């Protein structure tokens, strides 16, 4: 199998690498770029753990090939906060509301919720649950996660007020 060279921008940094055509973006981020915050829970597009932002859109990186992302701008969980050591509003809200237990699903939820709230800053409870249904958490029973999304809307509003 022949390798292909690709170049992507990840969390604001220009990264180059070589990859086989069949390598998923999730594996490329984890194995080639050592960004292990993106988790792989199913590898078939259902659990949402692998969610990253690709040119601003939330995508399942287990369903995108690395070569398809050539030239794209990617944000992973490692780059979702304002700066190293500080939490963004969605992360902060998850912490305040006990929105995570084992933390394995968490990067996917945080990235999905970040993208969702950028488009829908004042969602209803039903809209939140509907949106969250694309991600699976086996630990929390979703109680803390739903609360965290509500709390994140407040934190974002406070920050922009």
């Amino acid at each position, binding site marked *: 199998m022949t390798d292909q060279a690709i170049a992507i921008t990840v969390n604001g940094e220009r990264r180059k690498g070589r990859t*086989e055509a*069949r*390598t998923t973006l999730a594996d490329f981020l*984890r194995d080639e770029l050592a*960004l*292990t*915050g*993106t*988790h*792989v*829970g*199913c*590898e*078939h597009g*259902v*659990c949402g*753990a692998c969610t990253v932002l690709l040119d601003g859109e939330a995508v399942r990186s287990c369903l995108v090939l690395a070569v398809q992302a050539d030239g794209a701008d990617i944000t*992973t*969980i*490692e780059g*979702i*906060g304002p700066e190293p050591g500080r*939490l963004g509003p969605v*992360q902060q809200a*998850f*912490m*305040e509301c*006990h929105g*995570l*237990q*084992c*933390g*394995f*699903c*968490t*990067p996917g939820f*945080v990235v999905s919720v970040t993208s969702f709230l950028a488009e829908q800053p004042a969602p209803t409870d039903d809209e*939140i*649950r*509907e949106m*969250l*249904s*694309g*991600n*699976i*958490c*086996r*630990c*929390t*029973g*979703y*109680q*803390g*996660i*739903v609360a965290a999304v509500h709390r994140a809307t407040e934190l974002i509003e406070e920050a922009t007020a």
Partner: protein
Amino acid sequence: MTTTDAGSAGRFVGQSVRRKEDPRLLTGRGTYVDDMSLPGMLHACFVRSNVAHGRIVSIDCDAARAVDGVVAVLTGTELNVGRGSMQPTLMFEDAANVAVQPLTEGTVLFVGDPVALVVAESRAVAEDAAELVEVNIDMLEAVVGFDAALLEGAPLVHPDKGANVGQDMPVIMPGWDEIKADAAHVVSATFNQHRQTNVPMETRGIVASFDPASGELHAYLSTQNPHEARLVLSRVTGVPEHLVRVTARDVGGGFGQKMFLFRDEQTIGAAAVYLGRSIKWIEDRRENLIASNHARADRTTVELALDADGKLLGAFVDEVEDAGAWPLGSMGGAAPAVGAYFTGAYKLPFLSWHARAVWTNTCQRGAYRGPWMMETTAREQMVDYAARAIGMDPWEWRRRNVVKDADLPYTTPMFMTYDDSISPDATLEQAAQVIDYDAFRAEQRRAFESEGRLLGVGLSLYIEPCAMGMMDPLSTETANVRVMPSGKVSVALGTGSHGQGLETTMAQVVAEELGIDIDDVIVVQGDTASSPFGRGTGGSGSAIIGANACRLASAAVRDKAFAIAAQLMEAAANDLEVSDGRITVKGTPARGIDFAEVARVAYLETAKLPEGMEASLEATHTYKAPPVTWANACHACTVEVDRYTGLVKILRYVVSEDCGKMINPAIVDGQIAGGVVQGIGGVLFEHMIYDPDGNPLATTFMDYLLPTAAEIPTIEIHHIETPAPNPGGHKGVGEGGAIGAPACVFNAVADALALLDVTITDQPLGPREVLDALMAAGH
């Protein structure tokens, strides 16, 4: 949504302190096993049987071995030689155990049975090569399900055992026939519980690294129980225990699956030693669904004898569980516990039972959050069934039969005594009141009579044995509390936190006891190199066993700090107190010394220490759990069943529970909610189905359906805090949600369907099953 009496809360214990784990986990800086890479590390992929039962004719590895990048293709011929027991330490000398080997030779026993292992330079190459391994199998008739296993003349899963029943425990007490003859009512029913599986979001995995020069094996694992993993890895590989190290940093859930090290991880450990290399194996989701462990899969028949007022006279329970093909440890299940704990929260004068477990050509049974939940599921479903049969409301039935405060201590017919630290009556009343039981009954009638809608309410009441002190090696935890010269504190524990937040809760306990800030405490756990032997995390035990070990070790540290401070301040040690990091004389807060200064002296100015005192400031305490600690709860929920689509919608879900003194109420609620949602998922969505030939039909998340936020209501949690008789007053809380929920949801659906005189006895209750039940009753 939570009511808590925080009256007895301390500065840290009893507070919803934010978790120390969260910043790293929220920023992608956790370290799960797949995040671990070692120089020169190889990758492994199992070759598994794709038939349920058959004789291996040949395994041809030549094509796979020829692939560029393949380092080895191993079969039982290489790997099964001279292995020690793969059974869990707890049960490794049990007569019911089957001889599990790293890779199956001779006869494969389930779809997923590992027969070869490919080790290569990358995961992709290992997977490619695994496809080229040619396994030739002569198919045999598969044994799938209870009826097939118990059939006279059925093929045997383990011919050397002579039967498919691997465990047969009759505890038949005399007098049952006489009790039934005199009873006003005798009601009996059989409940089928369908097969489910744990589904941690992080699958299993291991990076095993063997250094042939030093003889050391270091395994990075996703485990709940590092010390148990070390013991069993030592047995199976022959590497002595002190040369095996197990490290688990972040663990992405387990729910029992990672409590005992399974065969696959042990096999990778053996392969690492055999090849003298580092090998990573990360289970994929299909493997996790078909070849890790399954659970539930029970059939329970209950016979109750009642007097004219509905009071219990006695019960007989017949329990059969499906243990699968290669169960680890005493059939891998809990059938006897279903009988032994069947009494639950009721005054039951007589109990007799028969428990059996059968081998089948399916994935092994293993622990899943509340492994013997069938005692609650079958009992609570039977309570509603029997109450309906004699025309009594199920709440009223429970009120008449529940163990009340005045009945305590109460000894069950199985000779177990509930002390006065339980509160089943109070939780029953609270749950029923919060769900507004009577008002709901009125609304149910109205909705049915005027609109034909099917509403239902369900209750589920239980008492859970936590932190079993009689089960070595799961009975003890040792905490080492070590103060550094700067006054900062490091706590070493043998636990295996996998979502419970033990780095936070154990630090809360230590900070509280030492009177210092929680930010000055770090808990190091999940690593055999840093901690004394411990029981890991499971069986609703860490709050009881881990926290009390921390508390008592901290108390010893505090005593020593007081002795040093007394010497330095020329005061009496028993006149001292500590808070906010400062040790002061009681009543004279101006006279004091910083805790950090005491620590400094203990290491760096040892001449100032009291005569004969050992320098340093640390203590180790091993806490052994009492034989059993009882927790209790009552769940209540309301549902609407759509009679045309069969869909069940949960309207409200209420939990009233008593886990004793809470360390961190937010974490307690999180444990309960997580367990409840697994229970709901089990009743309404999750079903691990096999076809009659033993092929698993749920191999992806498209077929094994997990609940999402869209299907789950708000879980309303209420607490009653009755301290347990241990130093911290804590009880277990990890499993209860998953124990109470299945019967609660089932009973609510059964209650709704009873409006149309439809009777159900089996789970799951997906739309198809509900419609089938309606149809069978002519609707």
